[in-house]
């Protein structure tokens, strides 16, 4: 009798396996951050090229790297951040598709051609780029907001009303800039200064979360460390918020579209890359995310309210945003220890 049951089980398994169909012709699998692609643009691509697009999501560059390393994911495209592109190239996980030879490459803004993570753009094209700073309520704090002091040595009205990103690098880099110290720092005396600063700050921080936009716009906090696109969306719901461009400096980042080694639909992936560099399509991404794209000529398609906003691009007189390459392993370990102590 037990044999009958096991045969039943095996039969079921066989039925299930055979009913799983392989990919239809004309498909494209994108591995992306959550909530980070314009549905409108995807629909347009599907209709133009008769390709079915599937989208899966990850929560961090590191998760994506771990998954891609298995080499059997079946994804065609991914959207790694700047430093992660460099790592993926080093690990030989990307196809060298030479986007610099694509038809729409001529639209790329020249400053994005020779980036440190992919000089000459042999592997990647820009997805969108933005900055990390903070947004603050001007009803609550009346003074000059363009300084990291508000976030790291807050005045009385902001004490206990702060949300920091739960992100070791963003917080420590802000602290290093505020103290005027070099980034990727392993000098014990410098890190001691950072630690003291953070220890004093700790009682005034209300939360450490990525939901900065929700927290700031709902009035849970009055100062939130945040990305510029999210700051824009937060301000639409709470007009007294203002995005700061701290005089001590702030971080820039760019996410990039890359083709994964062994992509099953490599031709469709290349089509999509080229498609993204079309000004109108790039503008759809910008309008959806609130972040700038790297395609010239797209400005005319961008929502004028967004394009004219303070968050969209750094204003005249603000310092240039700074890209931060990945630090060496010793620094990463030191930062992690500092961070764990801070959160404890």
């Amino acid at each position, binding site marked *: *009798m037990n044999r*009958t049951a096991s045969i039943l089980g095996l039969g*079921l398994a066989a039925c299930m396996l055979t009913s799983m169909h392989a990919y239809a012709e004309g498909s494209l699998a994108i591995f992306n*951050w*959550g909530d980070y692609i314009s549905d409108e643009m995807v629909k347009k691509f599907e209709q133009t090229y008769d390709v079915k697009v*599937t989208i*899966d999501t990850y929560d961090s560059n590191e998760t994506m790297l771990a998954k891609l390393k298995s080499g059997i994911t*079946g994804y065609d495209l991914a959207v790694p951040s700047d430093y992660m592109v460099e790592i993926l190239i080093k690990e030989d996980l990307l196809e060298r598709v030479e986007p610099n030879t694509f038809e729409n490459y001529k639209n790329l803004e020249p400053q994005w051609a020779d980036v440190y993570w992919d000089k000459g753009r042999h592997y990647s094209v820009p997805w969108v780029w933005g900055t990390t700073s903070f947004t603050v309520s001007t009803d609550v704090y009346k003074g000059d907001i363009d300084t990291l002091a508000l976030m790291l040595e807050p005045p009385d009205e902001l004490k206990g009303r702060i949300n920091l990103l739960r992100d070791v690098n963003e917080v420590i880099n802000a602290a290093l800039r505020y103290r005027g110290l070099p980034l990727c720092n392993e000098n014990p005396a410098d890190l001691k200064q950072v630690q003291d600063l953070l220890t004093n700050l700790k009682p005034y921080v209300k939360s450490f979360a990525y939901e900065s936009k*929700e927290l700031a716009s709902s009035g*849970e906090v009055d100062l939130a460390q945040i990305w510029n696109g999210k700051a824009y969306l937060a301000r639409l719901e709470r007009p007294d918020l203002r995005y700061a461009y701290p005089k001590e400096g702030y971080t820039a980042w760019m996410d990039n579209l890359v083709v994964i080694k062994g992509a099953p639909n490599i031709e469709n992936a290349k089509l999509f890359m080229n498609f993204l560099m079309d000004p109108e399509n790039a503008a759809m991404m910008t309008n959806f995310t609130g972040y700038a794209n790297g395609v010239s000529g797209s400005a005319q398609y961008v929502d004028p309210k967004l394009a004219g906003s303070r968050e969209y691009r750094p204003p005249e007189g603000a310092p240039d945003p700074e890209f931060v390459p990945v630090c060496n392993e010793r620094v990463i370990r030191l930062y992690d220890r500092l961070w764990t102590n801070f959160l404890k």
Partner: protein
Amino acid sequence: MAAQSTRSMRSLVSFRGFGAMAALCLIILYVPMAVLVTFSFNANRAVTVWGGFSFQWYVKAASNSGLQYAAWNSLTVALIATTLATAIATSAALATGRGQRFRGAQAFYALVNLPLMLPEIIIAVGTLSFFALLGMTLSLTTVIIAHTVFCIPFSYLPIRSRLETMDRRLEEAAMDLYATQWRAFRHVTMPLLMPGIMSGAMLAFVVSLDDFIITAMVAGAGAGTLPVYVYTQLKQGVTPEINAISTVLLAVSILLVAASYFVAKAGSRYSRPAAS
């Protein structure tokens, strides 16, 4: 036997503080779910701040194809993995509990339950390397295989313990009365075992539905499940849309569990010999 079990029940219930303890346990178990459901009707965008009653997140969730796709994947995986795992677990329980004794039965028992002791991340990485070794491309099939495997011990345990408390003589009596082995199984063993199988299946279903770590590792293109989807939204900010879809999923699972309970009850009444 019946009198004995009633007596032990009464003694447990009359134990001082039993009611309070049970209530506390139920509150701890169900308050998070109540909060989740409540906030799905939140007019505010934040998951933690109440801003009035609204259905807007259900409307939003209904038009979010990525969210629905993930929820659909979750249900598909949970249903198939539950069916397979329960079938395999039932066979295993029958083989170890009713079949001839064989060498290494104890070792087999331990082996079946091993996945319960291992940290999930180890199983996840192991499964991923296993698929990589076979050269299988990750897809929904790999998720179903992985879920089936880790669901087996969850459904095996209740089935096995049910089998152990069942009176062997009933089956022997059936065969004494010239029932074939199959008919004895079909009309005696199976109906008696059904409550064990049902609770095993429910456990497997629930475990499969909310697994994140293993799924995140072995899901291929187009195979992300709801927990994976929700987790990857964290960086962009979770909205009550997630609560809305979770509430729908909760309702679906409650319906499924209730339905399977009534089906099993009706089925067992139907197939029970008239004499009992």
